[in-house]
């Protein structure tokens, strides 16, 4: 059986109205845009989707819209991480009930749990559902809590539904420890990177990424992926460099610069919710200039 999660997958932003409430109609348009421009799966709401700024009710309502709008064209996973683990458990149940294809969960926030506590957390979450589970490792944002190869190996032995890991370490040694442990236990495990760091990860067993830039430049995403899997190292490197220049631009107050860039590409999705700032006119003009320099405006789709 093929992997459910591979290639350039899109974790979408959350379109908001001016009063910061969810804009459901635009959300549907955005999901459709990603499907049409080559996304191999959708995942929502990662931090780029402002997950932690949404209420439980909003998260559930938007998840329902997403599952319905996609209509099984590509798989959708729901990110269930919340400040309270009890809320995460509830969101996982909800995801299963509404027909999502999988859930994804980062290591718990704030407390810096021990390796043993992380093991217990993922076992509790993973055994509470019948859906595939994707683990999410982000040691740079949650220092102290991270997946070691050993922890991942233990969880793979325990949880048959642990099918993938999103790794946002962006680190040669850490990535290789995860890949060589996981793939030895389960060769069809999906190890993917947090943003489009495909060139350094694909030769070591990486099978894709959750994209940061797909709402701006889906063509570049596809080109980079194809160069990486075909082993065209010089082209992969050039495209990876270009992608990183874009990431350097977008990661600023993520996702507010990304939402700013989407305005330029004719796909406005409203403001970013506080405490994150919304890209102001000057910032949008700056982003426009950089997108122009990178040749993105002329080579990527405009509008919905």
């Amino acid at each position, binding site marked *: 059986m093929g992997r459910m999660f591979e290639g350039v997958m899109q974790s979408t932003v959350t379109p908001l109205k001016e009063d910061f409430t969810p804009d459901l109609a635009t959300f549907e348009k955005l999901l459709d845009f990603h499907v049409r421009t080559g996304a191999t799966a959708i995942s929502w709401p990662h931090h780029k989707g402002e997950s932690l700024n949404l209420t439980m009710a909003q998260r559930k309502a938007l998840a329902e819209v997403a599952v319905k709008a996609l209509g099984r064209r590509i798989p959708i996973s729901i990110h269930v991480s919340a400040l309270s683990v009890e809320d995460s458990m509830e969101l996982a149940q909800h995801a299963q009930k509404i027909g999502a294809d999988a859930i994804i969960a980062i290591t718990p926030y704030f407390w810096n749990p021990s390796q043993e506590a992380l093991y217990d957390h993922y076992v509790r979450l993973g055994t509470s559902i019948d859906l595939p589970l994707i683990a999410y490792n982000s040691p740079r944002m949650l220092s102290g809590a991270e997946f070691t190869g050993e922890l991942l190996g233990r969880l793979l032995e325990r949880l048959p539904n642990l099918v993938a890991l999103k790794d946002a370490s*962006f*680190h*040669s*040694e*850490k*990535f*290789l*420890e995860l890949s*060589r442990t996981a793939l030895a236990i389960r060769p069809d495990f999906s190890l993917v990177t947090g943003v489009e*760091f495909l*060139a*350094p*990860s694909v*030769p*070591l*067993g990486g099978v894709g990424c959750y994209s940061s830039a797909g709402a701006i430049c889906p063509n570049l995403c596809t080109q980079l992926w194809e160069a990486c899997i075909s*082993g065209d*190292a*010089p082209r*992969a*490197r050039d495209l*990876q*460099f270009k992608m*990183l*220049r874009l*990431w*350097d631009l977008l990661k600023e107050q993520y996702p507010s610069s990304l939402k700013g860039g989407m305005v330029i590409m004719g796909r406005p999705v409203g403001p970013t919710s506080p405490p994150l700032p919304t890209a102001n006119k000057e910032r949008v003009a700056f982003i426009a200039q950089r997108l122009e320099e990178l040749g993105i405006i002329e080579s990527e789709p405009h509008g919905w």
Partner: protein
Amino acid sequence: MANLRLGLVHTPITPFKADRKIDFGLFESVVAFHLKNGAEGLAIQMHTGESVSLSDAEQRQILEFTVRQVKGRVPVIAHTSDAGTQIAADRARYAQDTGAAAVIATTPYYWTPPPAMIVEHFARIGSAVTIPFYVFHTPDELAATKLSADLVLKLIDRLPNFAGLVDSSHQWQFMIDSISAAWRVRPDFQLISGTEYMVSAGTIGASAMFSPLAAVAPKLVRNLYDICRTEKYFDARKPQENVAALRQAVKRAGGIEALKGAMRAMGRDCGDTRPPLDKLEAKRFEKLAAELAAMPFLRDEPRGW
């Protein structure tokens, strides 16, 4: 600037006698071993060589000794890092006078100067010589001071001989930011993987590699490096995983004392590390030796000197 392109650079250990003095007799065997087993350059002495535990006079002595023994067969890169900028710069000048092919330095020990003074530190070391100068980025060992692409650009601007960056951060973002910015203004600038994690580094522009583990498994290291130089990174996955397995086994056993322990397990006993580093006591050594014995890919590696 001399056009030096580094390749596979071995980073030898420093052997000590029971009285903790440098064992030059044994060091001669160490250098000979590296030269015979694929080194395209020697970096004298990196942290692997316990540089920080050597006096200034000893660092000079060991460099002179190496240059005499190598006789120009491969470039000798002199590591001259120190806490004080002037001390490091003086040592760099001495290295050039002694016949080193290049100089390398990391951020100052102990101090956490502001970014402008980090630039100044490197600029003074680099401008003390006319041979190529390399910056060594090792944030896991020197966490307080961060390097950035901006610092790389400022140094390129200041130093015509700033030839490259030896990276042990393993951070993809830093490597890509730095090398892509550097290539725009200095196309022959080199990114060098500071350890054997060469596949990921190679995909994003590294053309050379520093290797401590070449003292343990020189064939494996050479094979990994050679495949990466052909840019066939999928083919490099297996040797990369084997090197990682070896590296993790050594890391679990300890620091440089464990590297020396691994050499001993391969029949190349180099004695203990110098204080304040721990000795590798029998129990840890035996566990490490057993782990290495269970690694099939080490069977073809040379035993003894």
